[in-house]
């Protein structure tokens, strides 16, 4: 085996390092083709990258926070600089968050960046998912990656919930209490699940320790592992692309990874970091010191979760008080909106690629060129209906805030929202369907009517 030529003096340092590594790992052979990997151009293809970069910021800031946080409910007497709590007995966990916020230099900045990053992270995931949905990018061969994306969203929810439960302030405790009640409501095994979940009767034993491990280890590991799988599949299957003059099912038209895409991504990473730094520095988020320590008998209104849990919160507020007992078995009122309905919603999300192929398009073929929403009116209609439903229940999650802002009786607003959750999705779906069909009309005669062409059995 002939050795690679010795590096010459004129080679740059980078060349020499790369050469050294290649001498030992044979990197060039496999990597070369990726330099010219094509990244299709459309701005919406970068939404998912926002989520990815927000995750990186979350990991970086989170690592910093983890060095100061104590997942411990042992009471300590607060003696820090925040006057209103001086001399109060609070949990070590809450104490550590106050310390981080007021005593650790730049601690509050990083805490706030972390929390804002979480909000933006989930927002980006959701928009990314909507893009995939409405353009049919989940179709064969990408069904599995759609499912992985759905699990990533669930993990993001989990990361968020466990995260905002950690500071042990009054708001976080309220969220935890509701989560526990949902667990408790499961027929037959609820009490058992509740016990296992929090280590005993509410408020439980060592819950913060468990949430902490979930938040800093298990969920991030899941996120990173599945993100790896997500990206692997993207590379393996290559990107979908928008229908353009040059795009075909058997090619990928786009900019090369090096230098265009690499620099674009780097630029975007720094842009995400900049926006999150701006939010973290300039906008206050979750001022836990104002809320006071958690006591099981205290609560305040409005008590809202972070935005991405708003739909679930709204479902809990809107769902009618249907509680019944059959043969001695009580189905708690909270069970259906907090467990069954979310289960159904995510069931539909996960099964969507197959539902879509089986009942909407009848198209089981492999596709790499994306559709426009108008190309499949039924899917678009369904998507808009679902989105409208989620939006209504999301709004209902802050019905008390809305009632105060709109000066409407709370009960009236709730009743209106209940009907809206049923009626508006139907209307939105019908409207979307009609609009999609209308948009299709002018091109009816043209051969670019895409769906039938792509159809196969």
């Amino acid at each position, binding site marked *: 085996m002939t050795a690679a030529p010795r590096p010459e003096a004129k080679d740059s340092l980078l060349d020499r390092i790369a050469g050294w590594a290649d001498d030992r790992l044979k990197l060039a052979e496999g990597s070369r083709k990726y330099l010219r990997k094509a990244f*299709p*151009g*459309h*701005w919406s*293809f*970068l*939404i998912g990258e*926002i989520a990815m970069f927000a995750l990186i910021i979350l990991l970086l800031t989170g690592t910093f926070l983890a060095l100061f946080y104590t997942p411990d409910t042992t009471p300590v007497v*607060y003696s820090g600089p925040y*006057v*209103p*709590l001086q001399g*109060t007995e609070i949990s070590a966990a809450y104490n550590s968050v106050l310390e981080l916020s007021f005593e650790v230099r730049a601690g509050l900045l990083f805490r*706030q960046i972390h929390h804002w990053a979480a*909000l*933006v992270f989930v927002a*980006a995931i959701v928009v990314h998912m909507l893009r995939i949905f409405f353009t049919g990018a989940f179709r*064969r061969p990408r069904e599995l990656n759609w499912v992985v994306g759905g699990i990533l969203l669930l993990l993001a929810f989990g990361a968020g919930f466990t995260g905002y439960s950690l500071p042990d302030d*009054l*708001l976080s405790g309220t969220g935890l209490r509701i989560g526990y009640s949902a667990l408790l409501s499961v027929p037959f095994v609820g009490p058992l699940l509740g016990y296992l979940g929090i280590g005993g009767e509410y408020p439980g034993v060592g819950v913060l320790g468990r949430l902490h491990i979930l938040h800093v280890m298990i969920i991030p590991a899941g996120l990173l592992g599945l993100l790896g799988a997500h990206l692997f599949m993207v590379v393996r299957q290559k990107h979908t692309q928008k229908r353009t*003059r*040059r795009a*075909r*099912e058997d090619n990928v038209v786009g900019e090369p990874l090096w230098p265009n895409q690499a620099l*674009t991504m780097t*630029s*975007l990473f720094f*842009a*995400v970091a900049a*926006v999150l730094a701006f*939010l973290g520095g*300039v*906008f*206050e988020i*979750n*001022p836990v*010191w*104002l809320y*006071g320590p958690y*006591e099981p008998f*205290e*609560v*305040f*209104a409005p*008590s*809202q979760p972070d*935005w991405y849990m*708003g739909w679930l919160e709204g479902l809990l507020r809107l769902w009618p008080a249907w509680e019944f007992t059959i043969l001695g078995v009580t189905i708690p009122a909270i069970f259906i909106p907090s467990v069954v309905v979310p289960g159904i919603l995510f069931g539909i999300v996960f099964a969507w690629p197959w539902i879509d192929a089986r009942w909407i398009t009848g198209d*089981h073929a*492999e596709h790499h060129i994306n559709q426009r929403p108008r190309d499949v009116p039924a899917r678009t209609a369904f998507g808009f209906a679902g989105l409208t439903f989620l939006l209504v229940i999301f709004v209902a999650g802050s019905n008390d*805030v809305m*009632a*105060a802002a709109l*000066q409407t*009786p*709370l*009960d009236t607003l709730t009743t209106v929202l209940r009907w809206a959750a049923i009626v508006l999705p139907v209307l939105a779906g019908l409207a979307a369907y009609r609009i999609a069909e209308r948009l299709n009309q002018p091109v009816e005669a*043209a051969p*670019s009517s895409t769906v039938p062409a*792509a159809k196969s059995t």
Partner: protein
Amino acid sequence: MAAPVHARHLRRLGLLLVVLALAAGFNLALSGDAGAQDDPNLDPALVDQGRELYGQACILCHGPEGQGIPDDGSGVYGPSLLGVGAASVDFMVRTGRMPAEDSSDPLVRRPPQFNDTERAALTAYVQSLTQAAIDDQEERLAQGEDIPEAELIEPGPPIPDIQGWQEADLSRGLELFTTNCAACHGPTAAGIAVGRDDVSSNLRDSEPIVVAEAVRVGPGVMPVFGDEVVTDEDLEAIVAWVDDVTHRDSAGGFAFGRGGPVSEGLIAWIVGLGVLGVVIYLLGEREGTEDVVETDGPEPTTGATDG
């Protein structure tokens, strides 16, 4: 032992007063003040001034004796003021809730219509009406008349003494506030919907004494917190915390009205994802992405591969 005196005590006390008053031959209104020694209602000049103001602003709805006018459809009515207490009168007038233009006016904060002296005079006068009613009640009780508990008139809560609030214990205030107040007023006392079409008050602009009086009086749908369970010292702590939390600089930056996760979510979408949306639009639009709507392109794109 100030505000809510139990009927049994009251009876005993009243009897004593009657005896004392008769014995000394003094005007009852001047000598006997069952509930609130601190009330300024002993100054006859003040009471007189109050009578005049009452005649101008209150008498129409609350009646000449403060006994209230029932709502008989005439559109002019009002509740009885007997036994509402000095704290209540002072609170209503100080916050401009009273006098109202119209009997059906909602009980909301308005610019006050009386200055400090006038308010003191009105308060004194209404207390003198209450006192007169109580005296009358004692006489009837002394004569063996049976008055139902619900109709018994008590002096009502006096204006609470919270002069020491600035030195009060904030952490105690925080705990009392979150236990008793935050469920309606919110974590930062900013006010929120509290059922029906009521919205709890934002306490940012409420003077400490107004907050304290509201606690004792329970205006509108608000519950009452008497001085036996929530002592004046507790009250000072609550007032101190309310003042602190509503005026505290936000350490974290713009707090956008302290709307909690609702406004935080809005900011995350608008400022966060909104700005990043512009960024990816600038970064991501590339050549080769032009839309093919019509089929002028050389290569119509079909070629789905079957699996």
